[in-house]
């Protein structure tokens, strides 16, 4: 009886009749169902809602009561004063992240692996890993309070060295540095873990061979360590390109204010403000869709790039 069942199993795998395959996996389909229904309800239904971008959407009257306006909302967004500002800010924040927050974990990983002394090595890893687990709200709360002109510790240090207290949060020129340093503090240790793992995978014999050849520490880092993690670096870089437009709007929302919009307002914060706060759902959705399409293009591009560079695709 049970043997017959497994024979049936083998047959089903060879004969790919649709009906039989369905019969052999109906239990799996039941297991799949909750997740599938969730995806349809909370990921694909919103995608249908994206047609709001083509309506002068009225939240109380729904689609039936709203007028179809074609690309009017996109026109309003693209021709409006906020378009170039949001594009520029999204791009600039992404570039700051790429230039500062991307290489930092690689450096940190090298420092960790080069470190002699178990205690300090462990402490360094523990200390740098920790900030990632403090919530965005608390980290932003710390930033805002540390930078307060009257009570903030940063300004106390500046005054100690003879400078003047500055209300950093209200000046647009400080926003990107503040945001970048905050992200660096939060994520460097977390992102270093991948590189540390890659470094530990390098064949120790390579180092021994280099030692015999009389290579110094810098030479060993340059000729063995760096080439050893280049594949990981490339993969991470390509993944970052894919995520570029998705700058951390959750923390930007907490840190920006009207006086810093000129450097801080990105596409997603604009969309959020227009929709949830101003009730301009059509324009907000249009801006959001614009961003989502760019994100999709970047991911496809990143995958192509990854295929070419590492001969392995990301998916």
């Amino acid at each position, binding site marked *: 009886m049970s043997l017959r069942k497994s024979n049936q199993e083998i047959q089903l795998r060879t004969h790919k009749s649709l009906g039989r395959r369905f019969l052999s996996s109906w239990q*799996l389909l039941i*297991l799949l169902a909750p*997740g599938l229904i969730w995806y349809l309800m909370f990921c694909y*239904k919103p995608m249908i809602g994206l047609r709001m971008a083509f309506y002068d959407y009225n939240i109380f009257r729904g689609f039936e009561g709203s007028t179809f306006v074609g690309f009017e909302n996109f026109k309003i967004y693209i021709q409006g004063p906020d378009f170039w500002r949001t594009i520029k800010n999204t791009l600039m924040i992404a570039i700051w992240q790429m230039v500062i927050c991307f290489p930092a974990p690689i450096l940190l990983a090298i420092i960790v692996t080069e*470190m002699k002394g178990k205690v*300090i090595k462990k402490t*360094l890893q523990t*200390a740098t890993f920790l900030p990632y687990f403090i919530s965005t*709200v608390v980290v932003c709360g710390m930033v805002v309070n540390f930078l307060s002109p009257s009570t903030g510790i940063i300004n106390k240090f500046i005054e100690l060295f003879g400078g003047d207290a500055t209300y950093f949060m209200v000046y647009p020129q400080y926003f990107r540095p503040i945001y970048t340093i905050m992200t660096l503090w939060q994520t460097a*240790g977390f992102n270093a873990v991948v590189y540390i793992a890659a470094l530990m995978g390098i064949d120790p014999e390579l180092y021994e061979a280099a030692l015999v050849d009389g290579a110094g520490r810098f030479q060993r880092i340059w000729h063995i360590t760096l080439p050893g993690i280049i594949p990981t670096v490339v993969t991470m870089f390509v993944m970052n390109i894919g995520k570029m437009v998705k700058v951390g709007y959750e923390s930007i929302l907490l840190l920006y204010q009207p006086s810093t919009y000129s450097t801080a307002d990105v596409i997603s914060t604009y969309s959020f403000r227009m929709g949830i706060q101003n009730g301009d759902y059509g324009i907000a959705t249009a801006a959001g869709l614009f961003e989502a399409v760019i994100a999709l293009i970047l991911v496809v591009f990143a995958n192509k790039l990854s295929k070419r560079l590492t001969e392995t695709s990301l998916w």
Partner: protein
Amino acid sequence: MKHAVNTKDKGGSIAKIESRGEKIFDISVKILGVVLIFLCLYPIYYVFIASISRPLYVENGQVMFTPVLATLESYREAFQTPWLWTSFGNSIFYTLCGVMVNMFFSTTMAYALSRPRLIFRKFFTLLAVFTMWFSAGIIPMYMTFRDFNLLDTRIAIIFGFSISTYNMIILKSFFEQVPASLEEAAFIDGASDFRIFAQVYLPLSKPSLATVALFYAVNRWNGYFWPMNLLTSDEKVPLQVLLKKLLVDRTANEMESAIITAQSLTSQTTVIYALIILAIIPMAIAYPFIQKYFKSGITLGANKG
């Protein structure tokens, strides 16, 4: 530069070079390490010492490395914050129930997708993975909750975020690593897919399940964005949303505070710092577990993309 090479046969013949350059290098790396440790921990340490100091000394910059005239008064005041304990309870509730829901939805789906036998497997996998590349965005998501009449409900928070595709894919690859012979053996014994899933695969992947559950738990506990937008009544709001009002919104309008004298035991600032410490404590307690389980998850996630 001359190198004196002397090979030591200490625990596996690791060659070692002794030279002045090497020693300088080692010491500089250590100094750099200490500086980095300081930079990572000082902000948290400062919040702690400021929270137990007299406000006057915090405001005039005398509290930098040690607390001045330590007092726990700020904590007493922080404890009395309206809705603090309600929101704390809510956070625990959302995290516990949320993670159970997360794990139910994610493991069942990941298991089904990990079986080559599943009909339309590629299509279903693509359906899930596609949401990582393209998502509808904030406004349509909000409208979806509105259409389902889920605004300001606890159900929205718990079930609206049942699956993180990233975590589900990690689970799927865990299940794929389990040898297929186990499934076949169970099949021959006449076990159903449900039993194989629940009694063979789940117990076998306990450490992986712990890792993913922890991923979910940290996100649940720390998230503020959707609870902030979806929940409007004070009694349903989790801790992070309350903290947002207390830490970020309140300090955005500077200078509402009363005059602080040497006798003042608390100020708006010291109470805020006390609240920050209170908010960090649960995470600090969980940190040893996080360290144990997280790292394997990160490396695997990076490899799977």
